[in-house]
């Protein structure tokens, strides 16, 4: 019996939504356990609070103003560090970049992870001695750094470590005072739009440079389902993507007028097609350690003469990728026949973001290029490559900021958590659909964060009293 369409559509979206949900759940649990209601959390001195340190007695206007200033300063710092990293990449200090990223990942896992573990030990009164704890922590952090950056490990391990890194960074951010958190989120969302869609965005330039040079950008990206084992031709591959070794990492197909960058499409060798220099490779787009925003504009490459690109997914559920499907139906032409060459859809990477101390990562998805012009059907029918893994990639910065929003919502009540969760997942879905439709790099933060913030305030101010009033009178609808 043929498998129904219902069993395969939507798989990659679910494979991205699941780790995002897990990360959010972990952050909510941590926040709920470690910051009980009513306790005053001493705000930590961070770079985000250089300008204004919120005190409970300040008036609303002062808090808003101070938070706004903090947000602006933070965004400026992120932008400066992004440019610094771009400069490092430009001058080919890749080793420096990699060492820095490994170091910051280690710091996150060891120091922040250690702090969280100590708090948990205190809370649950777990009997453990310092030496054991130290050894376990060092091992945990080391394995994490190796799994994420340097070696090929079972994908679950890499994914798990990425989620843990995102969770730790998000938990650290929730310690910021309230108004600063909200203004920070909104500022980062606005900055994301500008960095991705504006012509002088640092991430755009970085990606463009990486594409023209055909090099990887080391970064932290969560990859949903890599298929093929990575081979390491030259510099060690980055993060969690597993791509095959190909002579070129990016496809250069000329400069289409509206976008400067080409999609890097990974392809697997599993289909046994000959890989020549025109074939495509997954971009191991990650974020360089540091405050950096990377956005990728992507473009559909032209097909190689061999015709069908694609890679076979390991997972058995995917025969037709969702975004492939969306694109193909919207474009009105035939998607790649999965019986011949099982393709699924990676989206092209919209944006990757990096953060020095926190190693944020961004939404990087690899897009399956779909040409929407009917005229170019023949040219492009074979051409649209897919990521090697055929899976979506999401930068870790998005994990972090989504979880920060939900963690801050958890500090009020669980109802806001549910509302914000639905808003964020809805925003993520909308972003992915826009990506499939517009086929250019899209920042992952703005829609989700704005929906999340709107839903948070609506829920807290309006819906919560309404629902609680009804529920305590036991009147339901």
């Amino acid at each position, binding site marked *: 019996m043929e498998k129904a369409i219902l069993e395969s559509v*939507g798989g990659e979206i679910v494979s991205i939504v699941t780790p995002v949900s897990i990360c959010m759940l972990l952050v909510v649990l941590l926040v709920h356990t470690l910051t009980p209601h009513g306790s005053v959390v001493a705000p930590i001195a961070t770079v985000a609070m250089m300008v204004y340190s919120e005190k409970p007695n300040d008036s609303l206007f002062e808090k808003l103003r101070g938070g706004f200033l903090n947000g602006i300063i933070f965004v400026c710092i992120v932008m400066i560090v992004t440019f610094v990293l771009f400069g490092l990449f430009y001058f080919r200090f890749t080793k420096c970049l990699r060492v820095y990223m490994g170091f910051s990942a280690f710091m996150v896992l060891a120091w922040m992870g250690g702090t969280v573990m100590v708090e948990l030990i205190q809370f649950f009164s777990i009997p453990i001695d310092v030496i054991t704890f130290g050894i376990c922590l060092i091992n945990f952090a080391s394995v994490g750094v190796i799994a994420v950056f340097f070696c090929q490990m079972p994908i679950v391990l890499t994914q798990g470590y990425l989620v843990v890194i995102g969770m730790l960074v998000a938990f650290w951010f929730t310690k910021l005072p309230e108004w600063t958190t909200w203004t920070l989120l909104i500022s980062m969302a606005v900055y994301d739009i500008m960095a991705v869609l504006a012509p002088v965005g640092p991430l755009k330039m970085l990606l463009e440079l990486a594409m023209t040079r055909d090099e990887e950008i080391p970064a932290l990206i969560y990859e949903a389902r890599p298929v093929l084992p990575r081979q390491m031709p030259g510099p060690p591959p980055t993060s969690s993507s597993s791509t095959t070794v190909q002579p070129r990492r990016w496809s250069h197909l000329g400069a289409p007028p509206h976008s400067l960058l080409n999609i890097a499409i990974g392809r697997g060798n599993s289909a046994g097609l000959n890989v020549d220099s025109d074939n495509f490779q997954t971009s191991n787009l990650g974020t360089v350690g540091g405050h950096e925003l990377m956005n990728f504009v992507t473009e559909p490459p032209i097909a190689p003469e061999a015709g069908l690109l694609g890679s076979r997914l390991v997972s058995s559920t995917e025969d037709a990728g969702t975004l492939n499907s969306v694109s193909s139906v919207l474009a009105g032409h035939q998607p790649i026949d999965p019986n011949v060459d099982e393709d699924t859809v990676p989206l092209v990477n919209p944006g990757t973001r990096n953060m020095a101390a926190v190693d944020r990562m961004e939404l990087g998805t690899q897009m399956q290029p779909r040409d929407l012009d009917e005229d170019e059907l023949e040219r492009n029918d074979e051409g649209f490559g897919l990521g090697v893994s055929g899976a979506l990639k999401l930068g870790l910065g998005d994990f972090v900021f989504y979880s920060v929003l939900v963690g801050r919502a958890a500090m009020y009540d*669980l109802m806001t958590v549910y509302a914000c969760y639905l*808003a964020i997942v809805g925003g993520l879905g909308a972003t992915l659909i826009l990506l499939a439709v517009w086929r250019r790099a899209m920042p992952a933060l703005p829609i989700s964060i704005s929906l999340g913030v709107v839903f948070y305030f609506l829920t807290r101010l309006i819906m919560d009293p*309404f*629902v609680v009033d009804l529920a305590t*009178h036991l009147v*339901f609808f």
Partner: protein
Amino acid sequence: MTEVGGTGYALIALGPAFSLFLTVIASKPFLILTVLGSAMMWLVSLIACAILWRAFLPGAVWTFLPLLITVVGIQEAVRLYYWCLYLKVEHFLNKLAAKVSKPQLVATDKIQIAIASGLGHGIAHSVFFCLSLLTPAFGPATYYIDSCVHMPLFLVAAFMGLGFLLLHTFSMVIAFNALAGDKHFHQLFVPVMHLCASLLTMVNLLPGGCIAGVPMTLICAVVTLAVAGKIVWDKTGTGSAELGNLQRVHSSSSL
């Protein structure tokens, strides 16, 4: 009443939803997305209702009557809008299926999508009305309200949540079937049953009313379940005229 009690209340409210999710929905990613999408739509309708009525609450007891009527009206309108969206999605899925040489959507697929949509509504309802109240239930004490001294608030809310979850889930199945086949009786049945169940919860406002209110809600849920079951039975049973529809036949095979 400690973690055990809290977990127990949560399972009463959400246990059937959880098992429905695991058996029907978890294996199909599209249905998971449907659950999330319809939960979000229900949330939006709830926020719209809240904006409308926020200024009037907390108010006199009689305000609940127009509130319930308008709110149920809004939710049924949202259900119709959701149906229109579903038609577009179904069209899209069929087009996609044609392109990738897969069979078109059959009756069981459509029923599954209807169950997923209804479950999204039901889970959203249970989560917002019941689960968010349960946070104190994990603590050391319990809570009774004045009009219901027989059962803790959490227990009543859990049962009502369960009733409404089943009601929402299966009324969506009935509604999809009715709107697709243009069956007027069932089309009317859904909003009427929803309104009845809501108005019956007002019995809880009377002192001691929850003794009657909870069983009545559960009876409404069971009636809805029975009607939905009969519809599905007719559609997929061995005597069904649409039996051929059930087989996923490849377009080129001769099955």
